[in-house]
């Protein structure tokens, strides 16, 4: 396989963008990515875009940006749609099929219903009867917040995790997002603010649940041959790409965590030739913090600490921007918001901006010694299924 670089990125304002058309959000984002890459747009050969609700919007945005005519592929994989689009773009170049590809993600959440994602499948037919998967998908009165609330309570019981540990994840998220003008929520919160917020599904309060947000992001990928040919400045390199799946079935609770996250991270790390401990003092990452508990169990599932010790990482400051392993310097999904199709691409944009020390992230810059290595991760739930996607990046072509 060929080496693939990320050479440019653009991220729209995240928030309630009801009055804007898809192309009004997507066009400037794509143009920002092209400008950020200092690229002649005629070099772009292919487009993959993630969106759950935006049928055909890729064609409209490619048309509005002068790119229509290239292959355009829509990717629908719930919260992993964007990162899945990026993975396909990566594979397109790594395979030798293309040399320059754009990966985009866009969502207007008003147009998305998680409940129709699995329409006509087992989700509709037997969600109420299905064992374990249903709380995450709407069966038995459940939905996303309630599914993760079940996981939070099981984690608290089994490992002694405290509500303060979960709240402190939000405190960190808001602190980082206070330096991210594109985040939906930028106001700092205290631990008490989070705990005393409106209860959604106990033990999860409102600020522990990511908002339904509109937004877009785009990145440009390029082959090593073309990076050299076109003398691209400061590319970052994709060193690992992995994806996993499962269909409910109890894994989120035994032990509380996402078993396929662990498998997927191991595959991505192995492909990159790194171990979880290599990220300490050398790397950083953006993970899928759709709820406070999900970020905490991801620390554990990725092998950054032992099972049950996620709370220690947040309370000891390890995952702060100035900690040993900064996680979600952008503010993550909890503060940026979560436009399903855009999230995975926004995360990768953050990695590029951080590793290149772009002015975009100057107020939340991860220290230089952490910029060797980075990861991104999303967890999607199309219907009753789970889809995990993880990527590993490095600043130098060799880790």
């Amino acid at each position, binding site marked *: 396989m060929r080496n693939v670089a990320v050479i440019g990125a653009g991220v729209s304002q995240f928030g309630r963008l009801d009055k804007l058309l898809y192309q009004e959000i997507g066009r400037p984002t794509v143009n920002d990515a092209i400008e950020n890459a200092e690229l002649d747009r005629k070099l772009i050969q292919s487009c993959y875009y993630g969106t759950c609700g935006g049928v055909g919007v890729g064609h409209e945005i490619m048309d509005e940006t002068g790119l229509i005519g290239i292959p355009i592929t829509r990717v629908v994989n719930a919260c992993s749609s964007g990162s899945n689009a990026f993975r396909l773009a990566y594979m397109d170049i790594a395979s030798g099929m293309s040399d320059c590809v754009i990966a985009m993600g866009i969502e207007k959440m008003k147009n998305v219903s998680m409940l129709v994602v699995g329409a006509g499948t087992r989700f509709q037919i037997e969600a109420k009867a299905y*064992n374990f998967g249903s709380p995450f998908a709407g069966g*038995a009165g459940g939905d996303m917040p309630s599914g993760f609330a079940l996981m939070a309570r099981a984690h608290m019981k089994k490992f002694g995790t405290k509500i303060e540990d979960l709240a402190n994840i939000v405190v960190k998220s808001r602190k980082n997002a206070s330096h991210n003008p594109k985040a939906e929520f930028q106001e700092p919160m205290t631990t008490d603010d989070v705990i005393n917020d*409106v209860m959604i599904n106990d033990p*999860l309060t409102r600020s522990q649940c990511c908002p339904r947000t509109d937004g877009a992001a785009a990145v440009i990928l390029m082959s090593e041959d073309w990076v050299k040919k076109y003398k691209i400045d400061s590319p970052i390199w994709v060193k690992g790409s992995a994806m996993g799946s499962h269909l409910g079935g*109890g894994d989120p609770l035994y032990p509380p965590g996402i078993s396929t996250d662990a498998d997927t991270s191991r595959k991505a790390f192995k492909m990159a030739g790194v171990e979880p401990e290599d990220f300490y003092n050398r790397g950083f990452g953006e993970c899928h913090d759709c709820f406070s508990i999900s970020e905490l169990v991801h620390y554990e599932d990725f092998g950054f600490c032992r099972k049950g010790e996620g709370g220690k990482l947040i309370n000891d400051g390890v995952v702060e921007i100035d900690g040993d392993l900064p996680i979600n310097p952008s503010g993550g999904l909890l503060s940026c918001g979560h436009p399903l199709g855009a999230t995975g691409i926004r995360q990768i944009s953050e990695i590029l901006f951080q590793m290149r020390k772009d002015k975009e992230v100057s107020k939340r810059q991860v220290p230089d010694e952490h910029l060797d290595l980075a990861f991104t991760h999303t967890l999607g739930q199309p219907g009753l299924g789970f889809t995990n996607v993880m990527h590993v990046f490095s600043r130098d072509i060799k880790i």
Partner: protein
Amino acid sequence: MDSLITRPKVPRLIGSKLNAVQCNNCGNIRFPARTYCKKCQSTDLSSILIGPIGEIVTYTTTYKKTPGDKQQIFGIVQLYSEDGKSSIGLSGVFKTDNFEKVQIGKKVELLPNERNNIFKLVEE
């Protein structure tokens, strides 16, 4: 067309026990019942009844949603076969007037209901 249907014509519950199937090849339990094992694809299956007594694994109370919504408490229960050797997890709503009595590890009983999974605390 009929030959493609893999849902056996059996009731979901017998009394208040889950009418599941167990694979004679790999031991995997499947509920609702199907005519094949999803793990090993074997069609050599036996009926097995699970429940109605189980233990609460985790739970949550739903506070929010739209103004007309009723506050409810639900969670996941591990239900066991009569010999205690087999079990499955099932999500459902807890029927109780006192939400505080719902605790992890408490014993509950699955109530006979063809449409929804409803549990009541064994000692209330």
